[in-house]
């Protein structure tokens, strides 16, 4: 019998630990499929973050390093300098990348480090139990913002893609979402483009992916997808912010 579909070789058989309805699983698969489709699996080296995706080193079948909180772009810099021909990526959440690791991501972009960052933005700290993130929306409740994020005291959510798009050596910056099938397909295209540009050695590549956290948002998986669409996308608009191949 013909095999019409099978799991990508980019993932191991280890069962994910993610909560029901969490979109990390989808994003893992997209990254793994892209690596397989581009023939990069044997040469890929990924960097896991601290946060919900901390165990992704067990899920991706390529070589992996587990970084300290926020330091994945620095670790990836070391890896890529030693392995300039490898496909190197970091997989980071919003607390990891936009808060404690803000300096590392900005300066890896500034240097034009030739790796790809997959930035999973779900507007909350998931692993530690629902604390406010730099990307938590104004008014959104979190365990450290029990009355909702107060913009006078905690400021406004950080739009990382827009910020990185101002950096000349960040040659591909796109924000996508995985709340429905058409957007999942667009997300995969963006991830593929980012790795293609990385392998051409053109500079730093970045894909921000809006993601859900039903557990810490206090919503069902379906409500979460709807909430993402209605609340996150208006503040974090989807689209390409930079594509060096189109700017000639």
């Amino acid at each position: 019998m013909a095999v019409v579909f099978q799991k990508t070789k980019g993932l191991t058989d280890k069962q994910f630990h993610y909560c029901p309805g969490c979109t990390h699983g989808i994003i893992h698969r997209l990254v793994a499929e892209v690596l397989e489709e581009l023939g990069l699996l044997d040469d890929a080296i990924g960097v896991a973050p601290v946060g919900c995706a901390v165990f992704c080193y067990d899920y991706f079948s390529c070589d992996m390093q587990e970084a300290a909180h926020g330091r994945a772009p620095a670790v990836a810099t070391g890896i890529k300098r030693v392995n300039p021909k490898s496909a190197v990526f970091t997989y980071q959440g919003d607390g990891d990348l936009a808060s404690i690791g803000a300096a590392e991501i900005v300066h890896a972009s500034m240097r034009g480090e030739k790796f790809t960052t997959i930035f999973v933005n779900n507007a909350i700290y998931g692993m530690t139990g629902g604390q406010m993130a730099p990307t938590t929306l104004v008014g959104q409740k979190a365990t450290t913002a029990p009355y909702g994020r107060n913009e006078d005291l905690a400021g406004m959510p950080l739009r990382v893609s827009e910020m990185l798009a101002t950096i000349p050596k960040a040659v591909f910056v796109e924000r996508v979402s995985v709340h429905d099938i058409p957007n999942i397909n667009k997300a995969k295209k963006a991830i593929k483009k980012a790795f293609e540009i990385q392998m051409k050695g053109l500079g730093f590549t970045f894909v921000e992916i809006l993601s859900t956290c039903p557990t810490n948002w206090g919503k069902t998986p379906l409500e979460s997808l709807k909430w993402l669409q209605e609340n996150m996308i208006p503040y974090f608009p989807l689209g390409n912010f930079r594509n060096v191949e189109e700017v000639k």
Partner: protein
Amino acid sequence: MAKELWKGNEAIAEAAIKAGCKFFFGYPITPQNEIPEYMAMRMPQIEGAAFVQAESEVAAINMVYGGAGSGARVMTSSSSPGISLKQEGITYIAGAELPCVIVNIVRGGPGLGGIQPAQSDYFQATKGGGHGDYRLLVLAPSSVQEAVDLTQEAFDMADQYRNPVMIMGDGMIGQMMEPVEFTDVPKRNLPEKTWATTGTKGKREHNVINSLFIDPAACEKHNIHLFEKYAEMEKNEVRVEEYNMDGAEIVFVAYGTTARIVKNAIATLGKEGIKAGLIRPITLWPYPSKTVEAAAAKANVKAFLTVEMSMGQMVEDVRLAVNGAKPVHFYGRTGGMVPTPAAIVAEAKKVLGGAK
């Protein structure tokens, strides 16, 4: 090769390159700036090598993690406040068992402290500056030549034990110029780095560089494994110089720059008929406790005098080794002040007067 005049920092950098270090990640801080500056000049001349000026010490040590995890010979350098910033990365590197060399050209502290030579980072280097149970191999050169030799060997030590090695100099060692000969230090028989992340090439299971063990039993087992490794280091790597110890009635314990000043004091004391010896630890960890203990057991030894450029840190390890057998005294200058031979002589006489 004939002897050449080299500044300590630059000599350490060249020694690292001679040892096969091809990747350097650093950040400016006085008094170690000549190391990154020299690497910035030399690395582009070497095929496949790289120098990166990181955005911070925090980033630099994590670049070391990534590069070391990929199996390369990697180094970073800094001075005291910068080494404090690197501690997070150092504990991760120790936990993930990655070989690398970290140079600390120590300056006065605490806080921003000063930029003159000091030895007040001894606790940080030898007792675990970051969180968790771990050890660094800590090497303390007392001349530029010794800094060169130890730096070259440090890379082999790091690879042998899969452990970070710290070269602990002080501002004097870093800034001073001395005649140096770059001789080949004996190469160790080293295992292949089959654990490194270089891409599976479709030929093996994926390698994972990691220090996370979420199951407490597994985490404890990992710690026990690390300590078996540290026990091997304690067995094989202790280095110490014993100087003028025959018949010494007072034994100095000092390392690095301070040990050289103590040697001057010993000469002066000798002229005055006082027999003084020196135990100079070359490895600060593992510590030469047995040498100190053996000296304490000698009948001719009346007292110990530890001399440091700190308020008294290594003296605790001397006291542990002497274990009450003889009195242990301390003399130190700190904050960038360097003890004079005259002050050390005076302190020794005071100690002997008190012991008689």
